[in-house]
């Protein structure tokens, strides 16, 4: 029997099956926050009657971990969630059953069975790509070039201790112009460095000399990345 290990006492226990789910969060569902999204998944997994594994101890909770919280208001077509099931279930069944119960706006895109020993998505994370639809632009191409040419970009950033002046240049991997009002940002996230897209956009607007209206600019997270042998690879590009 695979996946069975024997403890020192000779009792057999079976390892749980781990799955990485890629999902989208769009439309009206942009307006629920991360904690509420977690509750939504907990309930949906229960409703779908998936054999989810629970933690031990006084307050057992579903073994589930998200790659990266998504800010309220931001949509996404590239979110990731790891779950552990007590038994093996076909990936398509997991996908279909969850999609049956999830509300409009949250949808499972793909499911992959991953090695139990594989690290969590959250710990592998190094970068995120955001598509940003700007409200006002002025010489966008130049502004992007200017930003990328800078060796150092010091801005006020909120840290645990309060506000601090930080150099964020190294956390900005790339910026691409997609069309007149749309850009794509590839920025650091996860354990390496955590940069929020609005900090970059605010700075870019400063360079363009336009007002940054945080309520009018639209953000969508496109995908999340890990680093394998020095190369950026999408979390969903399963081996």
């Amino acid at each position: 029997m695979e996946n069975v290990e024997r403890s020192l006492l000779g009792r057999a226990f079976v390892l749980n099956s781990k799955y990485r789910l890629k999902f989208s969060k769009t439309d009206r569902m942009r307006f629920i926050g991360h904690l509420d999204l977690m509750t939504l998944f907990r309930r949906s997994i229960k409703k779908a009657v998936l054999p989810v594994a629970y933690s031990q101890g006084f307050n057992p909770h579903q073994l589930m971990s998200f790659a990266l919280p998504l800010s309220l208001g931001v949509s996404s077509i590239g979110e990731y969630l790891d779950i552990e099931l007590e038994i093996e279930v076909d990936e398509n069944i997991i996908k279909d059953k969850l999609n049956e119960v999830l509300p409009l706006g949250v949808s499972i895109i793909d499911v992959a069975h991953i090695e139990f020993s594989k690290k969590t998505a959250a710990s592998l994370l190094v970068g995120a790509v955001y598509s940003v639809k700007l409200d006002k632009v002025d010489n966008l191409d130049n502004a992007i070039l200017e930003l990328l040419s800078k060796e150092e970009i010091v801005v006020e950033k909120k840290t645990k201790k309060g506000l601090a002046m930080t150099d964020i240049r190294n956390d900005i991997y790339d910026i691409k112009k997609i069309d007149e009002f749309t850009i794509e940002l590839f920025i650091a996230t996860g354990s390496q460095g955590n940069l929020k897209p609005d900090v970059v956009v605010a700075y870019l607007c400063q360079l363009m000399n336009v007002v940054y209206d945080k309520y009018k600019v639209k953000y969508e997270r496109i995908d999340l990345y890990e680093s394998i042998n020095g190369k950026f690879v999408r979390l969903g590009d399963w081996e």
Partner: protein
Amino acid sequence: MMIPDEILLQVEKPARYIGNEINMVVKDPKSVDIRFGFCFPDVYEVGMSHLGLQILYYFLNRREDVYCERIFCPWTDMEKIMREKSYPLFSLETLESIKSFDFLGFTLQYEMSYTNIINMLDLASVPIYSKDRDESDPIIFAGGPCAYNPEPLAEIMDFFYLGEGEVSLDLIMDIYKENKAVSGTRDTFLEKILSVDGVYVPKFYEVTYKDTGEINSFIPNNPKAPKKIKKVIVKDVDKVFYPEKQLVPLIETIHDRVTLEVFRGCMRGCRFCQAGYVYRPVREKKYETLIEQSKTLIETSGHEEISLVSLSTGDYKEFEKLATGLLDEFSNKKVSISLPSLRIDAFSLELMEKVQEVRKSSLTFAPEAGTQRLRDVVNKGITEKDILDGCKLAFSGGWSRVKLYFMVGLPTETEEDILGIASLSESIVSKYYEMPKELRKKPVAVTIGSSCFVPKPFTPFQWFPQDEIEIFMEKQRMLKRTIKSKQIRYTYHDAKLSVLEGLIARGDRRITKVIVRAWELGARFDGWTEHFKYDVWVQALEDCGIDIKFYANRKREYDEILPWDHIDIGVTKKYLINEMEKATAEVITENCRDFCGKCGAQSFGEGICVEQ
């Protein structure tokens, strides 16, 4: 979506305005004959926890010809933007304006929500007063516990529904459809529903007043209007429609769990409690029905907790069997059971341990009064021995937190009764320290909450003058001074809010303008401490020339015509008078199961009244 993103991003909890919850009903509005708006006059999180909404939402939506959608009161930040940018009030299912709906049904859960009702009508561009509406407006009606005294809203609502929704709503919908098909008007519809049980149409009744202010007469002005309107109740609570699904919100609400109704009514007859009289008789669901319903609701919702909801769940005849049955059903499904406040005895302790309510939670008691004498007056059966024995048992089991609920301002109350609250609490603290030191792992924490008694219609105390604000405050101060132990925490309710509640609870048609004026001056969410503006109400009372004392603080005579006398809840006035007399004599009344006092509810011929 009507409200643009940029607005939703600016308000608190934008998810209040997006709908799209699990189990939300989706229909094509063009495919139905009746668009019905269920309006809950409070914020989303409060309304979504209301069991009545859950039941009626699915009840109405089971009809193919009706689409029932939900509308809650926008929070103050959203209201401001809606007014600035002229966004009309909208429903959550279709995000459409509700002005063109056929019905807007409001649930009257508590008196201080009335300014929110007016606010919602105004935001929907519906004229506030019934007489000002025309064929383009929805029919506006109200039901719920406060509807038993409909008069403060009688000039605002087109009609009232007295009783349980499952009984006559279908007929009302049918009559509406028929009326519409023959191009009938609002007026013809309102006249047609006069024949429906439980329906009260205020415009067909005239009120006159004496010079001294009391009601002189209250009579129909239409031959079809019944002199008295009897509430309607569901006869068979096992067979009546009960939803198989529950709306599961996307954000945290007050009750994030399956709420399962165990029975309707209450047999205790506590004399201050309106719910105990207006929901009679007790009708219990069968054990099998409850287990079935609990399973279905858990399956369709994905909730991790189930709670039992009734006025006094512990009185359910087969409570032990039910609690054990639910535990057996759910303990290995990772669904926890949330228990209501129970009498503390060996069984309930064992139960609480199983349910792992855990010593984290507190024990709750509602003695309501500080002395046995006053408890007998209000017919609250709990004794000091019950409380202290229960605490002793629980403390030795590891509990260290106790919550006690009291009221100040009860009839025949004296200083001794107020001091009794303090001494009872101190006794509990002493009880804790009687335990051997090893068992006392934490210090004990006793919390006392005192609310201000508001006499309610259809209770034996409905003739009783409420305490004035200053008196309430003095009593609260006295209690505060008397509490010595550091382990006792005392919180109290706002007396000003309670007296205003008293104004509305026993108000008549003349106070409608006060509520409207208060709203005009900015009153909203009066039940919320951070939004309650007492000065606005004082101004409104002055502007309208209404003396709050006439309504709240005046002793009424037994022969006075009360504003709610035209409503029949089953329990008779004769019985209530008798209960008031017994109260003054400090004589208790037994519960319905032990002894039938022939209160009048037996006229329905149902439930506990006909139990063997």
